[in-house]
């Protein structure tokens, strides 16, 4: 349902994505893993076009965009994709001048033109879902990182996106706070939310994702089911990378040892 194919992207002289293709099946969680600078975040940001690829193709639900070098992507096309996605950022990026409730209402009120009371009702439901209802009237600056990220998840879900994009959702959090966020993401996954996440938190990837894509230097090294990739990686680079994950896997899995 999300298909990126032959994606090319440069930042200046740096070739960040080299003919990358990824398929994200509906109702499941796909993790993009890889070292810093591998292009996983850029690839994720190509899905809601915070980065516009130079060439390649993006299919998302009923939207299909072909990118061509030198051609500007129409804003209508960008919006047709963004309306189907929600995004969670590494540094939360809540709107500091709005309360928790107003943050979650923002997309509904400003973009979808919902009446305020109706938007507030949906925002409260979502805050209850992420366990943040009692903080509805608080300012974001008064919350812990884990609490802010849970509010950010509620904000991203408010316009009912087809897919939730998570860019390093736990990387700014200590393990205890990260767990609050992982628990919420796991619950969403169990409810069948389609998610695509870029993360170097292998535990997060292993515990939530069904599919994993390992990127290095702007290319897909290996892609497959989470279990296969973590237990039976075929490429030596993948093996070396996942070997850094020594605990937190389901017990039935055998952790590969560096060759």
């Amino acid at each position: 349902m999300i298909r990126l194919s032959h994606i090319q992207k440069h930042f200046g002289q740096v070739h960040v994505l080299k003919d990358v293709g990824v398929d994200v099946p509906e109702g499941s969680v796909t993790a993009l893993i890889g070292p810093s600078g591998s292009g996983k975040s850029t690839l994720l940001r190509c899905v809601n076009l915070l980065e516009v690829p130079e060439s390649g193709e993006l299919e998302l639900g009923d939207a299909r965009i072909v990118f061509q070098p030198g051609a500007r992507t129409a804003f209508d096309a960008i919006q047709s994709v963004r309306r189907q996605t929600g995004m969670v950022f590494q540094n939360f990026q809540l709107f500091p001048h709005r309360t928790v409730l107003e943050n979650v209402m923002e997309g509904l009120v400003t973009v979808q033109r919902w009446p305020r009371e109706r938007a507030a009702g949906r925002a409260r439901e979502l805050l209850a879902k992420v366990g943040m209802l009692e903080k509805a009237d608080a300012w974001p600056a008064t919350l812990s990182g884990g609490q802010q990220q849970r509010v950010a998840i509620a904000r991203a879900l408010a316009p009912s996106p087809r897919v939730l994009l998570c860019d390093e959702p736990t990387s700014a959090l200590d393990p205890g706070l990260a767990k609050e966020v992982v628990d919420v993401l796991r619950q969403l996954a169990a409810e069948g939310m389609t998610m695509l996440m870029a993360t170097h938190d292998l535990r997060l990837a292993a515990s939530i994702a069904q599919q994993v894509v390992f990127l290095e230097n702007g290319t897909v090294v290996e892609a497959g089911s989470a279990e296969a990739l973590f237990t039976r990686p075929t490429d030596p680079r993948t093996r070396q990378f996942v070997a850094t994950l020594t605990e937190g896997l389901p017990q039935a899995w055998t952790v590969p040892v560096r060759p």
Partner: protein
Amino acid sequence: MPAWLHLMADSFWPLLKAGLEFTVPLTLISFTAGLLLAFAVALIRLFGPAPAVAVVRFYVWLIRGTPLLVQLFVIFYGLPSVGIVLDPLPAALIGFTLNVGAYNSEVIRGAIESISKGQWEAAYSLSMTRWQAIRRTILPQAARVSVPPLSNSFIALVKDTSLAAVLTVPEIFQAAQRIAAVTYEPLILYTEAALIYLVFSSVLSSAQVRLEKRFGKHAAFAGRTQ
């Protein structure tokens, strides 16, 4: 009552009246119009097409690089030579508005640029258009950052309106000059004029405190907690 106090009491009302009738409207109108101009110029600087950017850069360069007094003279005494004759008050309003616009366009541009890229991306990720992102996300935060420098500019304008005296606008300073000319008491009259400016700018700065509270209610000043 000593004579100097008597003179001050007698001239107080004419000076205050000049302030209320000319200084205050001159300040408020040219600041409001100037801010709208500054906002438009800042948006063009940040997002406009290249030719428009060149035009507004030229405008800011020209106004910031020349003395306000000279600009007022060009507008009021110079322009009639090319057939543009303005009354003193409109000429002063135009001069002050152009000044407020040029200086504060840079304040507003800086404030907008100080808001992190992540806030734009958060707005865009909710499918906001650029204008929605500016209006709902960027400006409310930029407004808070710009209150202190804009207040500076506002208070400077209150005092700069005294330059309108040279265009024969009967504001506070002009009124003081007239009374001083017939009473031969320049020290008393100009001191009194200075005091009235002080009162006006103090009242207006108290508005800054209220504005800062209003825009900053979500944030604590971290430096003070230590």
